[in-house]
C-alpha cells in the first residue's frame, strides 16, 4: 500500500478492493475444483490401503463414497434453503423423490409406457444412457417447479408453520407415489432404469463403481461452485438479510416473497439433480427411499456440518453418511476379523441409532453452530453467552471513538 503514492489512500483501497472482488468468485471456483480433486483422489487412495481394505473390498468403499456424495448434494441444496435463507424445510426428501421419479419416467420401460413415448425401446440401453445427462437438468427443473408450487402459497408462513407445511409436503409426495398404483407401480416402484452412458468413461454398472464416483465428484463440484456464486451475489445477500430480519429486508427493497421462492426452488432443484443421479445408480425408484428419515438426516447433516458454510455442510454430510452407513456396518466385520476381545462382541449396527442420537445431542450442547460454522451463524448463536465479551468490545469501541475525537 505504501508504495502507491500518487493515489489517495481511499482510492487505492477502492482499487484493491475492486481487484479482490473481481477475483473472489473465480478464486473460489478454482479452490473448489482443486479441493474436490484432492478429496476425490484421497478417498480413492484410502479405499485401497490396509485398515480399510480389511473391512470391505475397495469397490464397496468407492460405492459407499458415491452414495455419501448423493447426500452431500442434498445437504448442499438444503443448506441454501435452511442455512442461508433461514427457511426450515422438513420435507426436503420430496424433491429428491420428484427428481428420481422424473428420471424413472423417462428411462424405464414402465415409465415410458405411462408417458407414452418409447424412449428406452427406441434408443436401446447404450445410446439411451446418454439421456441421463440432459435428464439431470430436467430433473432439476421439474423439482424446482414443484418447489415453486409448494412455496408460492406457503412462504408467507414463518418459522414453525412453514416447517409443518413442508413436513406435510414431504409426507404427501411419497404417499402419492405409493398409492397411485396405476402410474407409479405402488410399493414396488419403477425398476429397470437405464444406467447412464458416456463415451470414454467406461461402463456404468453395479460392479464398476468408478464412473459413478467420478460423476458424483463432478456434480458435487459444480453444485458447490454454483452455491458459492449464488451466496456471494446480490441474491445471496438478500437471502441472508431475510434470515436476519424479514421486515428490515423488505424495508431495504428486497421482494421477500420472490427471493424466498427462489431459495426454495434452487434448493429443490439441487435435490432433483441428486434424485436423478441416485435413481440412475440404484436403477430403481420406490416410495420407501424417500421417507421422512431422509429429510431429517439431511437436515441433521446441515446442522452438524455448520449451517451456512458449504464446505462444512459437505463434510458434515459425508461424515454422517459414512459413519452411519459404511463405517458402523464394517466395524463388526473388522473387529471379528482382527478378533479384538470386547469390541468384537458389540453389534455396532444395533447401536447405530443410539450412537447417532448421542452424537447429535452432544453436538448441540457443545457446538451448536456445527463443526465448521459460517462466521455469521456463529455470531448469531453466541450472543447471550458472550455478553461480558460483548461489553468489553463496546468499551473498546468507546475508547476508539474518543481517540477519533482527539
Amino acid at each position, binding site marked *: 500500500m505504501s508504495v502507491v503514492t500518487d493515489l489517495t489512500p*481511499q482510492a487505492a*483501497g*477502492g482499487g484493491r*478492493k*475492486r481487484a479482490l*472482488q*473481481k477475483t473472489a*468468485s*473465480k478464486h473460489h*471456483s478454482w479452490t473448489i475444483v482443486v479441493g474436490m480433486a484432492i478429496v476425490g483422489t484421497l478417498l480413492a487412495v484410502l479405499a485401497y490401503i490396509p485398515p480399510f481394505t480389511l473391512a470391505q473390498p475397495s469397490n464397496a468403499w468407492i460405492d459407499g463414497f458415491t452414495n455419501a456424495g448423493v447426500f452431500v448434494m442434498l445437504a448442499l441444496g438444503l443448506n441454501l434453503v435452511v442455512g442461508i435463507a433461514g427457511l426450515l424445510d422438513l420435507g426436503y426428501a420430496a424433491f429428491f423423490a420428484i427428481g428420481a421419479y422424473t428420471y424413472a419416467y423417462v428411462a424405464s420401460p414402465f415409465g415410458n409406457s405411462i408417458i*407414452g413415448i418409447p424412449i428406452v425401446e427406441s434408443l436401446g440401453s447404450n445410446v439411451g444412457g446418454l439421456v441421463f445427462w440432459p435428464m439431470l437438468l430436467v430433473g432439476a427443473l421439474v423439482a424446482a*417447479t414443484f418447489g*415453486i*408450487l409448494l412455496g*408460492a402459497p406457503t412462504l408467507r408462513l414463518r418459522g414453525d408453520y412453514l416447517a409443518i407445511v413442508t413436513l406435510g409436503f414431504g409426507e404427501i409426495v411419497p404417499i402419492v407415489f405409493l398409492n397411485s398404483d396405476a402410474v407409479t407401480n405402488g410399493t414396488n416402484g419403477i425398476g429397470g432404469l437405464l444406467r447412464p452412458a458416456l463415451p470414454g468413461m467406461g461402463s456404468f454398472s453395479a460392479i464398476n463403481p468408478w464412473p459413478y464416483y467420478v460423476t458424483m465428484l463432478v456434480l458435487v463440484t459444480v453444485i458447490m461452485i*454454483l452455491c458459492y*456464486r*449464488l451466496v456471494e*451475489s*446480490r*441474491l*445471496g*445477500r*438478500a437471502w*441472508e*438479510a431475510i434470515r*436476519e*430480519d424479514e*421486515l*428490515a*429486508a*423488505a*424495508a*431495504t*427493497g*428486497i*421482494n*421477500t*416473497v*420472490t427471493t424466498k*421462492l*427462489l431459495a426454495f426452488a*434452487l434448493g429443490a432443484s439441487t435435490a432433483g439433480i441428486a434424485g436423478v443421479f441416485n435413481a440412475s445408480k440404484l436403477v430403481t425408484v420406490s416410495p420407501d427411499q424417500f421417507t421422512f428419515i431422509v429429510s431429517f438426516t439431511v437436515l441433521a447433516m446441515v446442522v452438524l456440518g455448520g449451517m451456512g458454510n458449504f464446505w462444512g455442510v459437505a463434510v458434515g454430510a459425508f461424515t454422517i453418511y459414512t459413519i452411519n452407513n459404511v463405517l458402523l456396518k464394517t466395524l463388526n466385520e473388522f473387529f471379528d476379523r482382527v478378533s479384538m476381545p470386547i469390541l468384537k462382541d458389540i453389534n455396532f449396527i444395533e447401536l447405530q441409532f443410539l450412537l447417532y442420537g448421542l452424537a447429535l445431542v452432544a453436538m448441540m450442547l457443545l457446538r451448536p453452530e456445527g463443526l465448521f460454522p459460517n462466521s*455469521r*451463524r456463529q*455470531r*448469531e448463536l453466541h*450472543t447471550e453467552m458472550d455478553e461480558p465479551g*460483548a461489553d468489553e*468490545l*463496546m468499551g473498546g*469501541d*468507546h475508547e476508539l*471513538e474518543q481517540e477519533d475525537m482527539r
Partner: protein
Amino acid sequence: MSGNVLDNEPILVATQVTRRFGGLVAVNKVDFTIPERSIVSLIGPNGAGKTTFFNVLLGVIDPTDGAVDFLGRRMIARPHRIVYESLIWLMPAVVLGLIAAGGVAAGILSGRLLALVGLGVLMLLIGTLLLSVIRPVWYQKRLARLGIFRSARPNDMVGAGVGRTFQNIRLFKNMTAIENVLVGMHPKLRSNLVSALLNTKGMQHEEAAALDRAQELLALVGLRGKGNEAARNLPYGDQRRLEIARALASDPKLLLLDEPAAGMNPKETMNLVALISRLRNDLGLTILLIEHDMKVVMGISDRITVLDHGDKIAEGTPEEVRRDPKVIEAYLGAPAV
C-alpha cells in the same frame, strides 16, 4: 429559505388517511403533503399515531380509508376490486381448458395431445399464480388501469424511491457494516439468478461499483473505515447512522426517519442534525422526520405537523407550532380551570 421550499411541488400526498384497529382510531382523516426538498416533521405525544401513520405511508399496514400518492402515482389505498384479480389469473387457463373440452367433444383432441394441453393449462395456472405472488410493477400498473388496486408493499415503496429507518434499530446485526449497505443497494442492482450463476463480467463490474458506492455512503454518514465491523459491535450512535446509510443506498427521493435521535447523547444528536441537513442540502433529499427531541425538530424542520390521538391538531413552521395553544395542551395537559 424555508418559505420557498414549502412551495415546491409535493413529492408525497396523503389524503384523508384513516387507520382503525378495532374500535381504536389510530389515525383519523389526516391530510399530509411533503414538498420536494423539504424537511417535514411529525410530532405528537406518545400514542398519537405517528408510527401508525408512518407505517401506512410505507405500505407496512393498509389504511382503513384514504390514499397516498407518491410522485403522482397512487401507491397506497384501500384494496379495491381485488376479487377480480383472481378471476384474471384463472381466465387464460379456463379459456384454454374450454377450448380443449370443445376439442375433446369434437373428437379432435385425445391421447397424448390432450395430455399436452392439460400440461399447458397447468403451466398457465402456475404462471399466473407466480405473477400474482411476485407482482412486478408492470403487472400492478396493468391492474390499476383495470381499476383493480392493491396497496404497494414495503419493497415496492423502496423501489419507487422511499427509504426508511426504524424506531428501534433493525440492522442486519450479524453482517458487517458494508454488507448492510450492500443489502440496501438491492433494488438498484440489476444482476439476477443467471448472471450470478454464470458470474458474468457485467455482474462483477456492478458488484465492484456497488462496493465503491457503499464505501462512499459509509464515509458520508461518518463511518469511514468501519465497513468491516459487524453491525452489532458498532456503538449505538454508529448503528443509527449505519441505518441511514443503508436507507440511502437505494437512492431514495424521500427519506423517512423514525426517531433517529432516540437514545443519542447530545454530541451524537448534534452530528445527526448536521447529517440530516447535509442530506437535504447536498443530496437534494426530501426528509420526513418523526422525533421526540424538540431541539432536533425545531432546529431543522421547514414544517411541523402535530398529531394527537390520531388527529392532526396543528401544522406550520416551528415558530407557529411552538406557540399553538392546542399543541401546548396536547403535550402538557389543559390548563387548570
